[in-house]
């Protein structure tokens, strides 16, 4: 039977390269990570600049939106006041309507009285024509016929 030592080679005899990681892989990984970091930094910088520009561009719109909101609030207040005034007018109109109904009733009663009076008047016997008494209101009245300057002659005859 052969000895054990002769059957198994010693460990120190294996080559070194077979046991270490290759250096180029480490370098490649490091470079890739560095490149990625640089790209990320560049993209982040670009994104940041774009965001800043966008924020600057949107600033007037934001101001306008704020102004619009303020105006809208004011309009809402006006509408509230108008609604209140409308309600007040509607109440007044209703009161007037109630008054008109009362007046209509009074007019209907008056109409009945007038009809009754007209019927009484129609039953009376009155002359169809009556001559008014002479009115003495002339500022100037002369006793004898004055000489006139002209006449109302439709024919145009001298008077």
């Amino acid at each position, binding site marked *: 039977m052969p000895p054990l030592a002769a059957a198994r080679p010693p460990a120190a005899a294996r080559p070194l390269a077979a046991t270490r990681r290759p250096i180029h892989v480490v370098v490649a990984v490091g470079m890739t990570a560095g490149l990625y970091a640089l790209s990320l930094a560049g993209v982040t910088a670009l994104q940041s600049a774009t965001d800043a520009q966008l924020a600057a561009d949107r600033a007037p719109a934001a101001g306008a939106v704020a102004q619009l909101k303020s105006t809208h609030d004011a309009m809402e207040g006006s509408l509230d006041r108008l609604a209140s005034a409308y309600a007040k007018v509607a109440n007044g109109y209703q009161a007037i309507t109630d008054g008109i109904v009362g007046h209509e009733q009074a007019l209907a009663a008056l109409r009945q009285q007038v009809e009754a009076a007209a019927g009484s008047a129609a039953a009376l016997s009155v002359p169809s024509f009556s001559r008014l008494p002479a009115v003495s209101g*002339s*500022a100037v009245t002369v*006793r004898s*016929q004055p000489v006139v*300057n002209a006449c*109302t002659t439709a024919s145009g005859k001298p008077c």
Partner: protein
Amino acid sequence: MTAGPLDVAAQPAARFERRAMGSPLRLTVVGVPDARAADAWAAVSAAIEEIEQSLSRFRATSDLVALNTRAGDPTSAIVDPWLYAALAAAERAWRRTDGAFDPRVIGDLERLGYAGAAVGSGEARPEPAPSSRLSVFPDGRWLHRDPRRRGVAIASPIDLGGIGKGLALRWALARLTTALPELGEPAVGALLEAGGDLVARGVAPQPGPWLIGVEDPEGGPEPAVVALEAGAVCTSSISVHAWLAPDGRRVHHLLDPRTGEPGGDGLVAVTVAAPDPAWSEVWSKALFLEGQRGIGPRARSLGLAAWWMRTDGTLEMTPAARERTVWLAADGEAEARC
């Protein structure tokens, strides 16, 4: 034309006369030299001639006759300022009198045989007879006016008649005032007459206002004398334009537009005093058509100074007219018996 002093004059007055608008046209001027009065008469006479050439229905070449030939045509015709203003005034009068004044009664007048009195140099040209009484356009109006272009369209022939004479007096007085600026001075006055329609300004020849005799259409003595200080006195009477119709009836020219027949039952004349002669004419016609039953209430409700004579010769008047009446024959007779 004649000129000379008036018998009643306390101060010199010049008087002129000629025929116009189918009746005598007279002008009395007080308080100015004869030459100035003659200039004023020339201005008035020229104005009346222009107006008659525009408004007369009895001049073949007048603007009104030309317009009447287009009656019923809704397209506007451009007319001269006189005719445009007269048509506008006639429309106002028609509205104001609720149709009692209506210039479209010409068709009814011709149906009754009225021919009018041809005046001027031209021959009268008959207007086409309207197809129906008081024709209107489809919108219900008888007159379409375009004031910017002075364009008018009439639905049926018209006769401006009395209002035309009143307007002529109004415009002639304006021309007189322009020609005689001193008319507003204290000692200057004028009286312009056209067929019984009168308009006065300023002083009369005698002390006091102008005195106007109210005519008895039957030819009797004047029943009243009226004072006129400034304004117009116009009369609608049936003493002249009355005739026998084709059916033998005695008719006159004051037709009621609502019936097409002579109106004014029981009246022979109505006189109205008003500031303006055209409206004085319009109201005298409208009141006449009320007849003896309606004229009093109507005239009093309008506050007009109106005198009217009934067929029996009775003269009646409104309170406003009584204030302007300086002499009444009835009072004179009563006082004579005392």
